[in-house]
């Protein structure tokens, strides 16, 4: 689904990505893990086109990411920080993005708006209906994160990119979201996820990519990672990869 070849990105004196290669398989959940400042968020932003790499290539479903916006119609993105305009209500946010998505389809006669398929399951299960009319500033951090999640899933996108999706969610909401992620995988959709909670990734991930200092140190199925490192859990396996000297 996603192919990344030789991706480099430098911010000032900082080499954030240094020739990163990664393949994300269709219909699987891929966890991106690594220490802070390993380049996880920059990698995700390169896939979405928020950050322009210095060199290298990102391909999403066969389309090279080069500034054309259309491929993003297939992506649902949940950013790490859920901050919305203070006066906006959640309902307005959903409508705004819905309008933008409807207009995003090109090559149609003027005035024809294709309504994308709408998946409001998370709105219902998070019980957001009553919150939809309230200004976003009056919502708690957890509620805003719920809106953030509902928005990412709203258009039933074939590719979901979730940056720390369960941060700030209570256990019930967190379980609902995890069910939703596994359900999406069940429908053959692709999920890329980052998290600091390894037990959560263990529950969700099929594949793991371990990032260190802007390169991928390990990429492959979760079971392989555990077997190679002879560790019982993802957390210990990742720790063992991170502390292991670089293999030639």
């Amino acid at each position, binding site marked *: 689904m996603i192919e990344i070849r030789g991706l480099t*990105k430098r*911010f000032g004196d900082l080499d954030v990505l240094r020739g990163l290669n990664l393949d994300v398989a269709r219909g699987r959940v891929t966890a991106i893990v690594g220490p802070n400042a390993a380049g996880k968020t920059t990698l995700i*932003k390169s896939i*979405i*086109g*928020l*950050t*322009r790499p210095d060199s290298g290539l990102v391909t999403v479903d066969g389309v090279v990411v080069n*500034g054309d*916006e*259309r*491929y*993003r*119609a297939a*992506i649902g*993105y949940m*950013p790490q*920080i*859920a*901050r*919305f*305009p203070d*006066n*906006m209500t959640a309902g*307005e946010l959903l409508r*705004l*993005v819905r*309008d*933008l*998505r409807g*207009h*995003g389809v090109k090559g149609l006669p003027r005035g024809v708006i294709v309504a994308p398929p709408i998946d409001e399951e998370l709105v219902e299960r998070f019980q957001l209906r009553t919150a939809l009319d309230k200004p976003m500033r009056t919502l708690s951090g957890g509620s805003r994160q719920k809106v953030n999640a509902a*928005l990412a899933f709203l258009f039933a996108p074939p590719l979901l990119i979730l940056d720390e999706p369960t941060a700030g969610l209570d256990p019930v909401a967190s379980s609902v979201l995890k069910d939703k992620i596994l359900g999406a995988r069940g429908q053959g959709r692709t999920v890329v996820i980052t998290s600091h909670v390894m037990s959560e990734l263990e529950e969700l991930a099929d594949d793991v990519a371990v990032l260190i200092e802007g390169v991928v140190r390990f990429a492959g199925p979760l079971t392989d990672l555990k077997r190679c490192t002879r560790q019982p859990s993802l957390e210990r396996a990742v720790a063992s990869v991170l502390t292991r000297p670089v293999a030639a």
Partner: protein
Amino acid sequence: MNAIRTIFLYQLRDLARSKWLAAYGLFFFIASEGLLRYGGGDVRAMVSLSTIVLFVVPLVTAVYGTVYLYNSREFTELLLAQPVRRGQLYAGLYSGITLALSLGAIAGIAVPFIVHRAVLDASVRAMLLTLLGATAALTFVFTGLALLIAIRCEDRMRGLGAAIAIWLALALVYDGLVLVAVATFGDYPLERAMLGAMLLNPVDLARTLLLMQLDSSALMGYTGAVFQRFFAGTGAVIAAVALTVWIAIPALAGARAFRRKDF
């Protein structure tokens, strides 16, 4: 086109609910109302109001535009993650903010003139229209500069500092420097240099437009006086063209920076 309109309308709705924008409009309403009542005649009220506009509009729009963009950083990222072109998002953002800020100030200034029926007088009406035009032009110039700064500069404190520095330079320091130059090189024919100097400053340009309309030396500004003497008839046209360039350059530079930015 539709994406631009969607974002533009959202911006207008968002800013229409902003307390800051309401306070900004109210400020001009009180100034306009107060000057009309106690300012000693419509024309004198207009002159005082012009001075306030030339001072306040650049400052508020430069600061507000910068802060607004920094505050909506995460939201901008969220919108950019949708199938929207960056140029479209910028166009919607720019037109929404500039129009909302212009309308806020224009409504505040104009309503008392309408309520007091001062607009029935043709010359007052012409002056008022020029003043409102200058208000809109300065709003576009300084909001454009503010957005450009906020796009180019990652650090919000430095960005805010830069916005205020530009305002200080163009609204205050510039005229001071021109006066120093005049005082120092007063023996030389400086008019042409002064004209060139004025075209480089949008606040001076707006002041000239107002000065020509008001036909009043009450407005300070050395360059304005020179300009009027030189170009009596065509001066307004030249100033208007130069102002348009001043609006276009930051706006286009902002669009370019926005398309290339790493969010």
